[in-house]
């Protein structure tokens, strides 16, 4: 049973890496922000699976912090860049 | 009324603390301080009496939410698996009927997880939605969710 959790965690990790490579390519910086979402869902799922793999339930707290941080990072990124729009308008296009 | 709100919030914070510490008995010292500070912060940020909610309304809302988000996940997953996803995306403007405040926030966030809709902008009078298929009856779905939220928060819908 525990090996099964570990297997799924590795599978999700591969998923996350592929998704992150795609996200890093852009093309717009809005695409890159999707990484915050990925860690909020896939990252939390991986950590929860690992928490139930060995006797490491403390990893649940890490998952909790990941979910919190994903919310804060996303909000701050989006908000900050949005306000800077007037300063560097047209610098990053949607090419 | 205010006493009831304060009581409900204290119960909520105690429950959250109990869950977070997984029922450890030696954590209640810190817990007491945390619960009191959480209560003070919540009373400052969200004063009692601003809104009410009905438990039946929450139940119906959750039921609707869970079934529709299941449907929406399956729908988009199938689109991703198909050779031709069959998008007809567009941005639609929907006039809002919920009063400003919490209800609108819940509506915007709920629609992100509902079939075929993604909130892209919110103004004083309208909500802008990115829809995956503009031929679907999106507005009817938004109206349903509006009604459920209005029931949950005990508010009246405005005429648009």
């Amino acid at each position: 049973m525990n090996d099964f959790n570990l297997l799924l965690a590795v599978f999700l990790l591969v998923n996350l890496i592929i998704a992150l490579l795609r996200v890093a390519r852009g093309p717009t910086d809005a695409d890159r922000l999707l990484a915050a979402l990925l860690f909020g869902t896939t990252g939390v799922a991986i950590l929860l699976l690992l928490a139930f793999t060995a006797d490491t339930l403390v990893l649940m707290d890490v998952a909790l912090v990941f979910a919190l941080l994903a919310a804060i990072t996303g909000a701050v990124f989006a908000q900050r860049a949005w306000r800077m729009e007037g300063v560097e308008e047209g610098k990053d296009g949607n090419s | 009324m205010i006493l009831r709100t304060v009581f409900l919030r204290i119960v909520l914070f105690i429950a959250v603390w109990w869950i977070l510490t997984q029922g450890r008995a030696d954590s209640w010292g810190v817990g007491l301080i945390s619960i009191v500070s959480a209560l003070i912060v919540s009373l400052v940020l969200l004063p009692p009496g601003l809104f009410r909610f009905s438990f039946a309304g929450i139940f119906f809302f959750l039921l609707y939410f869970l079934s529709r988000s299941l449907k929406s996940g399956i729908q988009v997953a199938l689109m991703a698996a198909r050779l031709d996803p069959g998008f007809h995306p567009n941005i639609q403007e929907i006039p809002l009927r919920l009063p400003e405040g919490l209800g609108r926030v819940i509506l915007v966030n709920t629609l992100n997880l509902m079939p075929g809709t993604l909130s892209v902008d919110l103004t004083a009078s309208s909500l802008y939605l990115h829809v995956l298929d503009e031929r679907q009856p999106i507005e009817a779905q938004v109206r349903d969710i509006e009604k459920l939220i209005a029931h949950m928060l005990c508010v009246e819908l405005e005429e648009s």
Partner: protein
Amino acid sequence: MAIPELLSSIFLVMGAAFFMAGTIGLLRFPDVYTRLHALAKVDNLGLGLIILGLLFQAPGLTVALKIILIWLLALAASSAVSFLIARRALNRGVAPWKAKEQKI
């Protein structure tokens, strides 16, 4: 294999499958808005199913309640963040992708 373990495995595999579908959507969908649809909806359903599967393995009530709490938090977080990203993209003038027959 006992029934709870079997149910747990079924939900976990379904959850992982949805995560894979979400990643495929992310790779294939044409613009940032449609990719947000894929991440917000499919990945959250995947997370929900993984958590449902793990509930069968939870050693106690508080652990079970705690992962439900994490799920609610992750749900609210990703929904709010997807709205902020979409609004930002729109304000930056990222035009939504359109189907060919729509362009005419």
